[in-house]
């Protein structure tokens, strides 16, 4: 089930197995039949750790979604609540427990990822704490998403850290990194940029001291850890991603490795059956590197996907043609044995051709083109100091607010703040058009630095752009030679920092680093004697890049590109608090006071 986790440089399946083991242990603690009541948000991430079959093996017979009122009837001995430590969920649980009259079953709570005093206090206040046989925590910080990708899927990490100043998610990050080090060895070098990165590194070093007694005797798998604050690079997520996977996410949204697509294009055209009744349920597809074709095209610029697909189509049909050449029984047998694989390849090809068509309809539209043009103007520093007519027109036509906010923020970031007059104009337009209630959202954007008035006359974005070569005029989309292909010209700042760190080192860009927010630092962790790696000639180094506050698929693609570059000498594993795109990110910063019930 999780073969794709073992393919990469680092076997992330170890992490998954460790998580599964712990889950099994907890389930076995509750003897007898069980029903699980799920905090809905957790089902996605849990699906990546354990399928229903595992739960079933441990006598889980029913699963419900957590909601108020009475529990659905279930003839089981144990009711287990799988929840995040949130107060509002405690109230629902209390309601569930109170309404249970059978008295014959045991209740348990499993907090994910950590139990919280406050929640237990709330349960106590509600008078149900005593009803629980087990109150436990399931430490699920970093969830393996793919062979080189870990995410905590903490939906509001950026908001909490940069807006609300709540650093709980950073604490979880540090804990998660400790778990990772327990399994993969101490990471000898830590680099970081940004306030949160500093904070996480401090906590890690502190925790290391706490566990000082139990020396880790595992040969380190990671050579370096790079911690990057999202607010060091606010620009990248705002830009529209142009890789295949990035566009799928931008347009349809990928959640927990799955995407839901409009069903029309996926209608099964079976012979004999009329293809009249189109499916109405959205088509759900799992996207990861287990699918050979997807692994091949996911990180390509969308403009190169068509060619790749048609090449693949030729190979597959050639493979099917082989059957005519099969003469002897042996040859036929061999052909047949390859059939399942070929059929899977063909259906995968069909799926991705459909997806590519869907996306193409959108990317060839005028609206998409205009939007991209404005983005690229901003990124290259054209006219960022005045009100942009495209944005103005979009507002006048009541385009979706998130789109507007992305563009305005982008303009602000690219010019190191907007002139007060320009900023006020945009804000006024937004408030008058979309409603006064967005006042708070605008405030939030200002607080996080996405939107700000120009304070100094000096705009240092052009300097940063030039030093780090953020804009490449001749980006090659088909056979890329630089990471800038992921945004058709724009090289993500965060990835440039990563790239420079590997070679020639951050010392060469001290000036730029000083312009970016937060401190940059380097820490070393002492390895026990005898664990120093003896590097083979030509063996690549491995870096874990941790994006605090989220990472986009395009950035991931860029890092994968760097890993594959022959002379880079570095392989990257990516970890983050949350996989984001510009829209989901901006959305997480929005406030909706109007939806509070009066």
């Amino acid at each position, binding site marked *: 089930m999780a073969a794709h986790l073992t393919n990469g440089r680092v076997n992330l399946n170890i992490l998954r197995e460790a998580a599964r083991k712990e889950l099994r242990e907890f389930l076995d603690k509750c003897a007898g039949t069980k029903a699980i009541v799920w905090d809905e948000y957790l089902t996605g991430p849990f699906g990546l750790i354990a399928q229903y079959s595992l739960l079933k093996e441990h006598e889980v017979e029913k699963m419900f979604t957590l909601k108020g009122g009475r529990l659905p009837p279930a003839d089981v001995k144990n009711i287990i609540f799988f929840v995040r430590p949130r*107060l509002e969920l405690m109230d629902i649980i209390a309601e569930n427990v109170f309404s249970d009259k059978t008295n014959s079953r045991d209740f348990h709570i499993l907090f994910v990822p950590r139990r919280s005093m406050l929640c237990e206090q709330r349960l106590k206040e509600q008078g149900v704490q005593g009803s629980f046989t087990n109150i436990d925590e399931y430490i699920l910080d970093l969830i393996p998403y793919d062979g080189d990708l870990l995410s905590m899927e903490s939906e509001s990490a950026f908001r909490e850290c940069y807006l609300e100043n709540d650093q709980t998610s950073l604490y979880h990050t540090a804990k998660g990194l400790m778990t990772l080090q327990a399994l993969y060895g101490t990471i000898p070098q830590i680099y970081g940029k940004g306030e949160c990165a500093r904070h996480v590194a401090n906590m890690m070093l502190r925790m290391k001291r*706490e566990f000082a007694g139990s020396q880790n005797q595992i040969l380190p798998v990671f050579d370096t850890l790079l911690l990057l604050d999202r607010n060091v690079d606010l620009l990248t997520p705002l830009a529209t991603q142009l890789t295949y996977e990035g566009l799928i996410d931008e347009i349809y949204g990928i959640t927990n490795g799955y995407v839901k697509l409009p069903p029309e294009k996926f209608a099964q055209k079976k012979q004999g059956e009329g293809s009249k009744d189109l499916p109405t349920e959205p088509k759900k597809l799992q996207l990861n590197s287990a699918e050979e074709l997807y692994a091949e095209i996911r990180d390509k610029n969308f403009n190169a996907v068509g060619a790749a697909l048609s090449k693949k189509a030729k190979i597959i049909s050639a493979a099917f043609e082989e059957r005519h050449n099969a003469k002897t029984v042996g040859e036929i047998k061999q052909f047949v044995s390859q059939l399942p694989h070929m059929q899977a390849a063909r259906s995968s090809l069909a799926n991705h051709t459909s997806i590519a068509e869907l996306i193409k309809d959108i990317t060839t539209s005028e609206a998409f083109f205009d939007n991209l043009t404005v983005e690229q103007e901003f990124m290259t520093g054209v006219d960022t100091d005045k009100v942009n007519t495209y944005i103005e027109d979009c507002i*006048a036509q009541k385009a979706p607010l998130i789109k507007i906010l992305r563009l305005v923020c982008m303009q602000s970031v690219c010019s190191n703040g907007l002139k007060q007059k320009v900023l006020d104009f945009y804000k006024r337009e937004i*408030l008058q058009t*979309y409603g006064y209630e967005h006042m708070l959202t605008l405030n939030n954007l200002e607080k996080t630095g996405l939107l700000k008035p120009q304070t100094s006359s000096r705009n240092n974005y052009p300097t940063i752009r030039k030093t780090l070569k953020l804009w490449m005029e001749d980006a090659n989309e088909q056979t890329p030679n630089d990471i800038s292909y992921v945004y058709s010209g724009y090289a993500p700042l965060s990835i440039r920092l990563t790239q420079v760190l590997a070679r020639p080192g951050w010392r060469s860009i001290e000036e730029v680093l000083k312009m970016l927010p937060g401190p940059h630092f380097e820490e070393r962790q002492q390895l026990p004697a005898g664990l120093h790696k003896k590097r083979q000639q030509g063996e690549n180094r491995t870096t874990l890049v941790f994006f605090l506050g989220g990472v986009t698929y395009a950035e991931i693609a860029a890092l994968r590109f760097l890993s594959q570059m022959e002379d880079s000498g570095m392989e990257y594993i990516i970890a983050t608090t949350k996989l984001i795109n510009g829209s989901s990110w901006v959305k997480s910063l929005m406030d909706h*006071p109007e939806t*509070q019930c009066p």
Partner: protein
Amino acid sequence: MAFITANWNPLGEAFYRKVELYDMSWVLRDGLRDSLVAAAPYGGPIAVMKESRCLSPSVRPQLEIYTASGVIMATFPWKSGPVVLLGWSVSDELLCVQQDGTVLVYDLTGAFQRHFSMGQEVVQSHVMEAKVFHSPYGTGIAIVTGSSHFTLATNIDELKLRRLPEVPGLQGSPSCWAVLNQDRQTKVLLANGPDLYLLDNTSCTAVVPPGVSPQGSVFVHMAVSFSYKYLALFTDTGHLWTGHAHLQDKLSEVDTKIRSPPKQMVWCRRPKSQQPSVVVMWDRLLLVAGVCNDTIQYPLEEQCVCVGELDGVRLVSPSRHELLQEVPLVCEEIFKIASMSPGALLLEAHKEYQKSSQKADEYLREIKEQGMLGEAVRQCVEAAGHEHDTHTQKALLRAASFGKCFLTNLSPEAFVGVCRDLRVLNAVRDPSIGIPLTHTQYKQMTVQVLIDRLVYRRLHPLAIEVCRYLKTPEYQGVSRILRHWACTKVQQKGDSDDVIVRCISSRLAEAPGISYSHIASKAYDSGRTELAIKLLDYEARSGEQVPLLLKMKRSQLALSKAIESGDTDLVYTVVSYVKNEMNRGDFFMTLRNQPVALSLYRQVAFITTIIIIIIIITTSSSPPPVALICFCKLQEQETLKDLYNQDDDHQELANYYVSASYREKRLESRLSVLQSAVDEYNKAKNEFSAKATEEEMRLLRFQRKLDDEKGAGLLGLSLQATMEALLASGLQKQADHLYRDFRVSDKRYWWLKLRSLAEKEEWEELEKFSKGKKSPVGYLPFVEVCMKRSNKYEAKKYVTKVTPEQRVRAHLAVGDVEGAAEAAIERRSEAEIGAVISRCSSSSQRLLLDKLQRALATANRK
């Protein structure tokens, strides 16, 4: 070395030997006579106290604690009540069972630790006899009272008293009794004259051991083996019955011909031996009786005490300390006179080798011919472990090492292991340390426990040496020892806090995994709060620091430590704790009888707490009140407001009001909350927001007015939506009013009007509108809105008005490819020509396409 067998005595098929452990260095005035003596097993310490009944009531007996070699560790006068029994717990604590049932616990240095009682009724009826016993559950105590009741506690660390059922017909104390451990249950076996009873939790069962003769004789003494497996009964006829403790099998019966009851009776057997024996002691005689009905008799010159061990019996007398044990089989095989066992031959071979005699070769050859060299080495190694004399140990190990040279594939583990063990054992057996452990006992009790024992005796340096020598992982070894050392250090009076902290931190700096909080809590327990706080500074784990700080009522420090850790939950813990602390107190008490005041207080109390915490925070260095804000966000919105208020954070306060305004149902209250927001925005010098809020208020009032007048249902809509709605329902004038009043940008208003007109398909109006003021949005939107309603005819009217830059798009929008082509060619724009080409169908518009291609080529060339 022939004399090794000199002190061997045969018993059945086995031999018994007495090994001299120590010449006792103690000076006992009256020997051990009339004294309570307790010697802990596994070579543990010895406690001695004169029995109170032998002293005049005015004299206070002296309680003395010695090592097994007689070195004094502690002595102090006994000031408490009369003691019935002394005993040792598994963790080397001295238990003194008093007549009134109180048990006083002392450590090895004679420092009082704690006390507990064996039950209230005992105070009256007195403890007649008591026994301390050890089981897998820990150390237990059993007593029998003056009213013939048995009470026992299986584990004194988790005291649970159990009173056992009554024994029929028992008056006073039984003639003898013992504690058994069977089937994971603790039971008492007792004899009342000739009758035996087994007492468990619920029942009292009469039992009869098989084959006791003569019938009807009275049991005067009984003993249970170290492992609770065997039982020995001594009758008044001088018979010694031995059997299994479950009383179903008899092993043997020996007639000792001594009718007086023995002073002590102890089992002596070595694990795995099939020949257990019992050591019976009278005043002047020690008798070893085996199951083979054979006996050995040792005359005694002094008063002795027998201490049962796992693999023998130790005899403590005022002058000597000896170990009586069955000679281990390997030792017997090697040292037995005329033994031809491989081990014996190897030992001999090595002896000859040292003499440079060729006989060495002969012996070796002999062993090798039998193919027994491996066995010979094994025997020597094993025997070395069992020997106490270092010369013998060396001789045996050298022989083993010699034999090893002739073997190619012998694993050295056993040899190295025994060498290491002996090094440790010899070190702790040294008279200055005085722990006479045998190898068997050492293996049974493990290094961990040995380290503990050394630590209890405060032999920290030796313990550390042992750990380093055995390469025990630091976490379990050195660190643990240092922690214990530090704990004793903080309890030392006299030294100043700073001296102690410096001393501890310098010594512990290098050791990993030290729990400073544990040390600090010890310091706190012994009343040194300041010291504890200083020590806590070194604690790395905030999770450990914070609870202790709270316990010591240092909430401020606890809070800043919690914030430092980044663990939000920990912060919550502190905040809720402080909140609870504040609820208590005298203030609360005075309010209790006034319900109204109380409920008011309840609401206020929390806020007060928060404010107090803010004061704490702002006065301390300056950790951010971040954590608090989080806490409040979760707990209570209202509190948040007060918090911002307290902080003079006008911006946040204003935002709070904005958010709050949406919770108000009535427009008036909503407006007044918004007014507060305006005030706060003004205070925060946020002009834009203040103005925007004022506008919102104006809009709300306007909407309300129109809703009242026309029932337009506008309240809550955005300005844009309001104007849209107004236009849709034909309220042009009002819309225009808003446009002017709110200074809506022209562009936006034009767009709005266009769309609204097109939506209503008022084409004439639209045309009129286009002819009015020059459009600020250009004329492409006119085309677009028309096309949106699929009105190509109307759309075409505006194509000509569109600026040249947008004309291609306009033509394409209305589907006029040719027009678009013309415009594009005219503009010679590559991109635009391309765009048109993509819209041409290749079949029907061949000509046009060619024309465009040519134009493209020209444009390209330029």
